[in-house]
């Protein structure tokens, strides 16, 4: 059997085959395939499963020191240009592949339960397979151009999946917003890629870095141009990884089914931006100012996400802003020149955030039995509470996730977040401070979510509250929903297919942190052995402890405040804080007004501009045409008498004109030639 690293190109191919098969089936034999949904889902899960096996084998090979594999072929050529495509498998790729295939598999199993009653079950699985294929393709891409290709494809899958319930207006708008905002980033990414190709004649990550540094030392391209290109390329990751100010699409994307929020909008696709920045480290490390911008954007995002999460009442939106914040941490790591720390956090975060999202899905699934399929109700924490007793698996795993993300040792989040904060402390102390504050906020809002959802008394039966919420959200209750309201179920634990992934993910959420112990980091050994050796030698407990203790203390403080406020209700935050500083409260609950700005400035602005252009087109440009038509109609009346109607006469005129033309220019020709 060949080495898995050598056949890594097969990894994206298997899910693709599955997606194409079931997609064709959906188009041609729609009814039959919808009736045999289990066969389709088992088939697709096994296709992804094969990819997972190859991925793990490749990871083991890479851990054991097998060389990186890169194979290319000419995809397009013209003149002297060739555009190569192919695949690469290196340690970074193998880690990502293992992560993505694992989470995809778990989410697929989960979806079997979550989507069981949905009429789009098969379509959902097809999209999932298509997404996993694109995501794996992105990871094995050997150059920027191929990354761009898959980058767009994962964006497309995200579009399809966010808009999965296409009868909901919210989903339709969110899907479009996600795609367009990402295209804004891709605009920069594409221009950056083109510019870098112009400057270095290459799409390859390393060759670009070498080429740029050479060109700068030879002064063949101005430094501002190089900086601009680097920044343009960074716009792509900013959009995909939901960095300020292009993060606006991610919270809206929660309109998609919850398994999608877990897979695409928490664990994998949004991490693609971080991954690309990691791939481009050779380039970015040349320019400290770009590194600073990355770190700055990262820390703004990190703080912004956490601060908005403080006031969210929608369980999924709260988690979404938490994702924004955590992605900010990863970007901060990249800006600090510590890609290993960033990727480490990416891995740990993927585990516990996927688990948290799947847990929230489990909660929503249960809530829908009581309040109906109205996201405004089913996801609102004001209607939850006391779910712990009825949903033991969900609540326990959710609690583990909260502890992990808050950075309490020895769970996963502590090690990775601390690694980032440690690096930030060395590179940009100010950003370290932001990160530290955010850590406290993280612990607070996560435990706020936990206490509101799982502790206290169940508030879901409160009809008054439900009505208030519906009125507040301006959702019109049509008859269909009224009916759903009548059927009353009770809260119960989700089926095994949903709890199994939760329990499975709880394990790495607890222990995966040990992969990256600062004194003996296995993940650093794999990704960057030289750096890892230096780091482990330079490690000193005295340096490590103060920072670690500071971040643990602030996290504990956050948890204690949340406990006081939402569990034993000793302090009333709304009296203590919200009423005293109403402006800050408004600022936060309106999400820093960024959505409003976006809506007013860009959405309405572009509509207005388009309308004006259309006016010009139909009134001015076409107006001139129609006016000419009228004028000629008038003059035609006059000319009528001039026309003899004899073809020879017209031919004579035309011929005469041509002779004249030739006479004018024909005689000049000898002088020129």
């Amino acid at each position: 059997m060949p080495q898995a690293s050598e056949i890594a190109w097969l990894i994206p191919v298997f899910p693709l085959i599955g997606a194409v098969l079931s997609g064709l089936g959906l188009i041609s034999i729609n009814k039959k395939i919808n009736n045999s949904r289990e066969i389709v889902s088992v088939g697709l899960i096994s296709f992804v499963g094969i990819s997972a096996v190859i991925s793990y084998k490749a990871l083991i090979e890479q851990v054991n020191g097998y060389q990186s594999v890169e194979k290319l072929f000419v995809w397009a050529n013209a003149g002297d240009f060739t555009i190569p495509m192919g695949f690469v498998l290196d340690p970074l790729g193998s880690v990502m592949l293992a992560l993505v295939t694992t989470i995809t598999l778990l989410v697929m199993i989960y979806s079997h339960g979550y989507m069981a009653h949905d009429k789009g079950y098969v379509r959902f699985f097809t999209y999932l397979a298509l997404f996993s294929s694109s995501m794996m393709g992105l990871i094995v891409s050997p150059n920027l151009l191929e990354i761009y290709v898959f980058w767009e494809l994962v964006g497309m899958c995200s579009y399809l999946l966010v808009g999965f319930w296409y009868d909901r207006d919210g989903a339709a708008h969110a899907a479009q917003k996600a795609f367009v905002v990402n295209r804004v980033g891709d605009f920069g990414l594409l221009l950056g890629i083109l510019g870098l190709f112009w400057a270095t004649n290459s799409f390859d990550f390393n060759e670009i870095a070498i080429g740029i540094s050479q060109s700068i030392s030879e002064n063949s391209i101005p430094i501002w141009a190089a900086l601009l290109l680097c920044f343009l390329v960074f716009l792509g990751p900013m959009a995909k990884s939901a960095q300020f100010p292009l993060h606006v699409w991610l919270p809206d994307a929660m309109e998609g089914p919850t398994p999608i929020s877990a897979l695409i909008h928490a664990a994998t696709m949004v991490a693609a931006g971080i991954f690309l920045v990691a791939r481009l480290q050779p380039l970015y490390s040349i320019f400290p100012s770009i590194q600073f911008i990355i770190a700055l954007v990262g820390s703004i995002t990190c703080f912004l996400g956490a601060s908005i999460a403080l006031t969210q009442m929608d369980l999924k939106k709260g988690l979404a802003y938490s994702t924004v914040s955590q992605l900010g941490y990863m970007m901060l790591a990249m800006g600090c020149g510590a890609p290993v720390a960033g990727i480490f956090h990416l891995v740990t975060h993927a585990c516990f955030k996927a688990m948290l999202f799947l847990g929230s899905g489990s909660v929503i699934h249960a809530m829908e039995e009581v309040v109906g399929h109205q996201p405004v109700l089913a996801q609102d924490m004001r209607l939850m509470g006391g779910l712990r007793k009825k949903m033991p698996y969900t609540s326990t795993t959710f609690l583990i996730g909260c502890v992990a993300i808050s950075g309490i040792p020895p769970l996963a989040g502590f090690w990775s977040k601390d690694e980032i904060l440690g690096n930030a402390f060395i590179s940009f102390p100010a950003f370290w401070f932001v990160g530290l504050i955010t850590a406290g906020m993280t612990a607070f809002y996560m435990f706020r979510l936990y206490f509101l959802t799982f502790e206290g008394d169940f508030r879901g039966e409160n009809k008054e509250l439900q009505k208030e919420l519906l009125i507040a959200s301006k959702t019109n209750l049509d008859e269909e929903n009224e009916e759903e309201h009548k059927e009353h179920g009770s809260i119960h634990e989700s089926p095994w297919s949903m709890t199994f992934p939760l329990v499975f993910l709880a394990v790495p959420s607890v222990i995966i942190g040990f992969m990256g112990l600062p004194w003996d980091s296995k993940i650093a050994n794999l990704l960057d052995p030289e750096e890892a050796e230096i780091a482990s030698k330079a490690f000193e407990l005295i340096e490590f402890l103060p920072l670690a203790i500071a971040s643990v203390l602030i996290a504990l403080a956050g948890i204690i405040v949340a406990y006081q406020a939402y569990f034993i209700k000793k302090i009333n935050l709304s009296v203590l804080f919200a009423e005293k500083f109403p402006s800050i409260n408004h600022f936060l609950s309106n999400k820093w007004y960024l959505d409003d700005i976006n809506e007013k400035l860009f959405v309405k602005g572009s509509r207005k501009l388009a309308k004006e252009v259309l006016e010009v087109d139909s009134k001015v440009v076409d107006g001139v045409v129609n006016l000419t038509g009228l004028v000629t109609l008038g003059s035609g009346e006059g000319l009528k008498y001039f026309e003899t109607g004899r073809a020879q006469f017209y031919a004579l005129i035309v011929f005469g004109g041509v002779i004249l033309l030739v006479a004018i220019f024909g005689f000049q020709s000898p002088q020129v030639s």
Partner: protein
Amino acid sequence: MLGTLGAGLSNFPWLSASILFPIGSSFVIPFFPDKGDGKEVRWFALSIALITFLITVGSYINGFDISNENVQLKENISWLPDLGLTWSVGADGMSMPLILLTSFITALAVLAAWPVKFKPKLFFFLILVMDGGQIAVFAVQDMLLFFLTWELELIPVYLLLAIWGGKNRQYAATKFIIYTAGSSIFILLAALAMGFYGTEIPNFEFSHLAAQDFSQKFQILCYVGLLIAFGVKLPIVPLHTWLPDAHGEATAPVHMLLAGILLKMGGYALLRFNAQLLPVAHAQFAPLLIVLGVVNIIYAALTSFAQRNLKRKIAYSSISHMGFVLIGIGSFSSLGTSGAMLQMVSHGLIGASLFFLVGATYDRTKTLKLDEMSGVGQKMRIMFALWTACSLASLALPGMSGFVSELMVFTGFVTDEVYTLPFRVAMASLAAIGVILTPIYLLSMLREIFFGKENPKLIEERKLIDAEPREVYIIACLLLPIIGIGLYPRLVTESYIASINNLVDRDLTAVKGAVKTNIFSGTKTNEILKAPKI
């Protein structure tokens, strides 16, 4: 044995056959019994269109050598020697893909015209005449003959618009014919001027004209005339206003032909005449082409966004996509120019598929106003899927042909050392705005048609049936090459790359000549054309 067979096949007059066969066969149609439903005519037209497609494929396989940059499959018969008119056909890399595209799209258009019940005999007669006529436009190697075929194709389009169009069909058809016929005067003038240039006996053969050394002023004059003529066809903003009307009124099959093939005549002719025969003038005007291309992309994208009529929306999106053809033609790089070629092929496929879907949707909803649709996707799920796939192709999703062609145009233009760096940066950035605008209008369109709650009025009044197999088949036929090219563009680019390289070399020599001898010193274009110091 096989050798002689091969030799026999390569002597077969492939191109004449592909032109004359559909036209000749169409004259059988009037003799069909008039039963009213046109069933026989449909099948007859479909088989003729398919055979024509096979003939063009045969010519590509048997008589066309992709490594040869010269005109192949030549046939030369003196027709009217007194006028210097010869029946001269042939194909090089620039013609061949478009000939194949024409016969392919026409065959699908015939299949798309299945529901045409009004005067089916005349309809299919015109379609078949158009098939031959359009192949002729791409295959002729004589400028006078080119003018004749260019005009010939106007008549069936005019009739197809005027008889089978929508409410405003008379206005649209008249506008179309005035625009195109009016502008093609310039083709005739330029053809006569070029044919008589420097000789007593006129000669309109491309090969003869290409060997001519036209004076610079003469070239510029001809160039401007031809640019107007072809700019109407492509179309170039602000010469475009016939298109939304014509496209807005045409029925789906005619629509497919208009968008799939007719627009390409403009791009092809720009390459063939402006870029190939008038290189010195091209060196001066290329920057203008780039600017016009960028204007096309942004202006039409914005107009499309504001359009509330589905057909006109897609019509404007066609104009927007043609902007990339202009940029590619003006790029002086073989990557960019071959991107322009690929964009023509790609848009031929994507445009045809979208226009077909518009027609198919209209058959069901009986309205094209976006405000009157909503939530259609719940009843027409397969149609929704087809729409989504074709819209994604149109917004240049990777893995589909539109992405490759736009990427090639971008890359070719950006890496092109003929233009100064600021000019390239500015133009590439502006053109890339199209990357943002295209999904805005296409996805908004999808959202308004298919997403959201069902429009109760529409559901009540219309029976929304999902796509039938014939429709799925047509879209599948179009998506297959779209995805094929997207995955492996060399499928198509290899067929014309030799000719394009040749063309670009010629143009580059002209540019270098212009810069070296400084003929245009003092003109503004020269500033732009100077090689940047980097």
